[in-house]
């Protein structure tokens, strides 16, 4: 194996780290704040992600209140939003700011940084048998760039003209011209700067994940013995590294157009009572640059959940994942196709119909690997011995919602259907289910599953079950009806539908959805509460391997120090899903247990 050389090298590096354990207690600052321990950085990402998720979700509650009850006023909103909701009535300007921030925060800060930031950091070294990332320092920088980017985005919420309000896609000219919208003032500049820093953070993180996975696997951890979580983090990182820089290019050109008089995206515009001097640019160019990241981005959001769901479904069914190799191949398929389908977001932008046809074909192809994954998950639980732990509930919920949201992708990816459904509630229902809720379910499953490893305590089960059922039922109640509104062509991002003959009858539906949103929001707060209280008061983990799982993270002590293993790093002798009789009454064989005489590998 060509791996040997790198492994030997990696081990040399490990030896160097061994000394760590003899050090006296670390200073608070280096242990909790400027930590270079991948586990602590993972937790930092998670906590930051949770804070952002609460803000992002709260914003959705605010704009749902407007949509559900456009005639009423909610004094509580004025408390939060000040003059943007005078008398408890949201202004249209701020409605659009909230929609924009909700999308930006959840897609980038929660489901990218909070999800793959948390679990790639936390799990990659633990599951491949490494003491830390390839570059712990870069890893720390990655978090702090994210932090600075977060602070800038947060500050933008408080500027006089409000935060960016052109949608999370921030299409120019709307986002380029301050005459076009209040949110295209200072708020937009802060948004753009924040995004650039965010991409820096993602690249530092992503390169680190890739390097670590390729070079720092322990002895015997062949690529084909890596858990599917690691495979999914690997491809997530590759997608990020290949596509995020393109977003930066798009964003930088937008900054030029805004402040330096260039015309990359602007041409023949009359706004604010005067004709602008810009000629020759193309607003569509930005859309290409944006969606070249924007589409892979949804897989950056999806893949970690897929990986974790695979792991959790297998562990809690006490059965190997079905079709391990097929799972990897489908991940490869999704990753490569993800890079060549971006223009399906632009079918009605006036693009060349021929080009559109190519994107239809490629887009629908991506349904094949997704279907394979679903069938493999179903076969994984078939004839299993399912333990309905909280993470398992969320993993099952993940599969259910992934199916529901994924199938409507076949509708939208087919351009002839997309013409009518484009930018309607159908799209909202589709992507919220498939990349919003199901990614969240993957994340929740991961948090409940690895919480014992993170904090040496369990989260409260009862609250976990309550959280699951409210969220699961809530998600369907919120998004299922939206399909109907979308089929009727009801446009998204409307502040008020009462003036529309075709859509004013959907008012009761909107009110119903808003009520469910509020309930579901409180269930999420319950989760947050459970999370933080259990961190300090949760039931203690007594055994090293509470779920009886096979992967390496469960061979570390309950409270692993920086460096993860006290002794030498365990060697790996088998694939990660050996859920079978070990001959001593256990129904699983950890990866570090050598093959028995005469036993054939997987």
């Amino acid at each position, binding site marked *: 194996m060509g791996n040997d050389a790198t492994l030997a090298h990696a081990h040399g590096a490990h030896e160097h780290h061994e000394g760590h354990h003899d050090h006296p207690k670390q200073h608070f600052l280096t242990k909790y704040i400027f930590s270079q321990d991948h586990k602590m950085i993972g937790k930092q990402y998670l906590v930051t992600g949770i804070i952002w998720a609460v803000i992002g979700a709260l914003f959705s509650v605010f704009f749902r209140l407007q949509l559900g009850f456009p005639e009423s006023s909610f004094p509580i909103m004025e408390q939060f939003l000040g003059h943007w909701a005078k008398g408890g009535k949201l202004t249209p300007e701020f409605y659009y700011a909230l929609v924009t921030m909700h999308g930006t925060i959840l897609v980038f800060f929660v489901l990218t940084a909070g999800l793959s930031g948390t679990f790639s950091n936390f799990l990659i070294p633990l599951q491949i048998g490494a003491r830390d990332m390839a570059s712990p320092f870069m890893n720390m920088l990655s978090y702090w760039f994210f932090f600075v980017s977060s602070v800038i985005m947060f500050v933008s919420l408080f500027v006089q003209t409000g935060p960016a309000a052109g949608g999370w896609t921030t299409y120019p000219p709307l986002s380029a*011209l301050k005459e076009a919208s209040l949110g295209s003032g200072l708020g937009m500049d802060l948004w753009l700067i924040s995004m650039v820093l965010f991409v820096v953070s993602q690249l530092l993180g992503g390169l680190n994940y890739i390097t670590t996975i390729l070079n720092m696997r322990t002895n015997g951890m062949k690529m084909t013995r890596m858990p599917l979580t690691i495979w999914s983090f690997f491809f997530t990182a590759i997608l990020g590294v290949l596509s995020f820089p393109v977003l930066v290019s798009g964003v930088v050109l937008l900054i030029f157009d805004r402040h330096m008089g260039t015309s990359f995206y602007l041409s023949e515009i009359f706004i604010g009572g005067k004709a602008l001097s810009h000629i020759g640019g193309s607003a569509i160019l930005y859309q290409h640059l944006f969606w070249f990241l924007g589409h892979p981005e949804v897989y950056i959001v999806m893949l970690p959940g897929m990986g974790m769901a695979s792991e959790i479904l297998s562990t809690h069914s006490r059965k190997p994942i079905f079709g391990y190799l097929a799972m990897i191949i489908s991940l490869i398929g999704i990753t490569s196709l993800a890079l060549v389908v971006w223009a399906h977001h632009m079918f*009605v932008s006036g693009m060349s119909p021929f080009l559109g046809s190519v994107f239809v074909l490629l887009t629908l192809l991506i349904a094949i690997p997704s279907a394979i994954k679903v069938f493999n998950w179903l076969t994984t639980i078939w004839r299993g*011995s399912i333990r309905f732990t909280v993470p398992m*509930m969320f993993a099952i919920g993940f599969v259910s919602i992934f199916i529901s949201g994924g199938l409507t992708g076949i509708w939208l990816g*087919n351009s002839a259907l997309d013409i009518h459904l484009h930018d309607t509630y159908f799209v909202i229902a589709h992507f919220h289910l498939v990349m919003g809720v199901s990614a969240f379910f993957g994340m929740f499953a991961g948090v409940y599953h690895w919480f014992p490893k993170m904090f040496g305590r369990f989260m409260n089960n009862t609250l976990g079950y*309550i959280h699951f059922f409210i969220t699961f039922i809530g998600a369907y109640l919120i998004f299922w009806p939206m399909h109907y509104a979308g089929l009727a062509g009801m446009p998204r991002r409307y502040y008020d539908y009462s003036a529309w003959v075709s859509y004013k009858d959907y008012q009761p539906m909107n009110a119903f959805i808003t009520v469910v949103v509020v309930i579901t929001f409180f269930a999420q707060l319950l989760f947050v509460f459970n999370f933080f209280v259990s961190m300090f008061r949760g039931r203690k983990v007594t055994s090293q391997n509470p779920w009886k799982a096979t992967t390496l993270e469960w061979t570390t002590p309950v409270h692993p120090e920086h460096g993860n293993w006290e002794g030498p790093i365990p060697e790996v002798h088998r694939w990660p899903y050996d859920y079978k009789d070990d001959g001593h009454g256990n129904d699983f064989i950890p990866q570090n247990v050598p093959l028995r005489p005469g036993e054939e590998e997987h």
Partner: protein
Amino acid sequence: MSGLILTALVILVFIIIYQIAKASEYANIIRGEEVVAKSTNKLMAVLLVVVFILGLYGIYKCHQYLAPLGLPESASVQGLEYEKMLHVTLIITGAVFLATQAVLFWFSYKYQARDDKKPYFYSHNNKLEVIWTTIPALTLMVLVAIGLKNWVTITGKAPEGALKVQVMGKQFNWVIRYAGKDGVFGKTNFRLINDANNILGLDWNDPASKDDIIVENGEAHIINNKDVQFIINSRDVIHDVGLPHFRMKMDAVPGITTTMWFTPRKTTAEMKQLTGNKDFVYEITCDQMCGKGHYSMRGTVVVETEKEFNTWLAEQKPYYDLQHPAEAAPATAVKEGTETPAPAAAQDTTKTVASK
């Protein structure tokens, strides 16, 4: 203050819930974790099935409430194809949806942990993988084929003799233009735009512009059973001409001219009858977020018989005449045109498209 009290209340409720949950966990430990785990496991398996069945009922209920609010049958010939395609797609994805969800919840229930059953070590089966790769692939190819056939028709060249209507988006309304008697759209130049007297930036030096008719209230009149081509652009930011009843949509992009054509098949009057709604009106939605007034950017389409259309058109005065009621008007206009800076550099995309 009330916000503070509310927050405190929420936290209090959470603390209480947490304490109860924690107490129940302690009680479990006393009762024996194993036993509890078993009964919880059974309960969860049952609950999942209950949720599934309730879900099916919910889908039925949802359909009952919302299906009647849906759109009437397509008002365009092209939309009929869309509807057929939608049904095929719905049947295929619907079947897959029901089958996979049913299997998911059924397996979850059936294979809950039991003392007398051991899990079956089943790691892979290449034959199965091949089957469930090929079948979806073939099915998808069918959908792609249907889709592309429709896509090519819809995005193809508009038939000869189609009525040409320009739709221009601006924050936050639609402006409609007809070519007038000569059938040719006059040149426009965005630098000539003036909200007071030249809303589209028509170049009065071009004789073809003098008879152009502009409808400022965003009401487009089109002829039933006659192809119509919309020539779409925008003055400021990106908008989108959405015609839900015709199952049509196209972006309006500043600096770029886009087009869309279709064949209406129901007049507004017929649609009023069909839906039993005397207020029925074809609406133009803006489907691309365009700023704070996005939600109010409403236009309408009136589909009428050729005769009604001609009568209506004859009543419309050319925009030029409306803006220049005095006899001396032409002279002023020419002067205005020359005063505007750099008309030579201007582009006249509209004219090119219109005369194609």
